[in-house]
């Protein structure tokens, strides 16, 4: 399963990452960070859909996203 980690103290809630995700799993959370921005997140229930494409990280202006990719194995992601 691929996944992203949002570094919440860097995120500014601009939502650009939400527009480029091919599986549409990034949303704005209800949490505010120390700067008062509502940070982006992937809800637990959608986590396994991440393909590890890194589009979200490429468009993030604040280098707030790390992407971990797991090679596809038979019968799973």
């Amino acid at each position, binding site marked *: 399963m691929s996944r992203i980690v949002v570094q919440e103290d860097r995120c500014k809630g601009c*939502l650009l990452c939400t527009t480029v995700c091919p599986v549409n799993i990034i949303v704005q959370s209800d949490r505010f960070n120390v700067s008062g921005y509502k940070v982006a997140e992937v809800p637990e229930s959608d986590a396994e859909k991440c393909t590890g494409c890194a589009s979200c990280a490429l468009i993030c202006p*604040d280098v707030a996203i790390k992407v971990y990719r797991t090679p596809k194995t038979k019968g799973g992601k």
Partner: protein
Amino acid sequence: MSEINEKLVFDKPEIIIDRATHYCPGCHHGIAHRLVGELLDEMELGGNTLMTTSIGCSVFLYNYLNVDAVEAPHGRAPAVATGVKRARPDHFVFTYQGDGDLASIGMAEIMHAANRGEKISVVFVNNTVYGMTGGQMAPTTLIGQKTTTCPNGRCETTQGSPIRMTEIIASLGGVAYAARGSLDSVKNIRTAKKHLKKAFECQTNGTGFGFVELLSGCPTNWKMTPLQANERIQNDMIPYFPLGVFKDISEDGGIC
């Protein structure tokens, strides 16, 4: 456990300092910084870089990129970088300038540094406005675009038309590479990085002056959301400021 096989495929470049930036949400300066940082890491230039920063929202760039830096007075980065490179020719020297800085107050410096073919690289962030000072008209402001100094929209008759810097720079003899990219989409960000890499290589292999314009969003002064700002780049900016490589002498010979 799947975590055992997982690979970190995207992370903050080493050279980018881990500190939240002062930029507005959705500001493309952050993307431009990251692309420069990725290339300095990948080309292993970091320890040998002398950055010349400018005046504008990116004035604190030295807080975000872990390289030695000189802060130039408004518009004068190409002149300062000329001196820096001539004094330390073994170093990698680049300027990072906004459109107010480069195309307005600094028009003379950029034109002559390019024309002399200084062996420096220029990163030009064009967001069609003076961002830092609250959104005044820049030489690159589009016709009809409202700013604090053209509240009814820029009028061609009285204010002239937006200057296409990359085309002008490409026409100068000393220039090795001139290209325009955009930071509004994943695809364009990838291409913009290729332009920057080419421009940086022109310096590292001694070919000469490299110039890359990056069409960038300033949601705050455009009074838009970051999403709307990206749409504006697609719909209004790219048609006027076409993307592509306008000069590349590495493709056709080179200068001595």
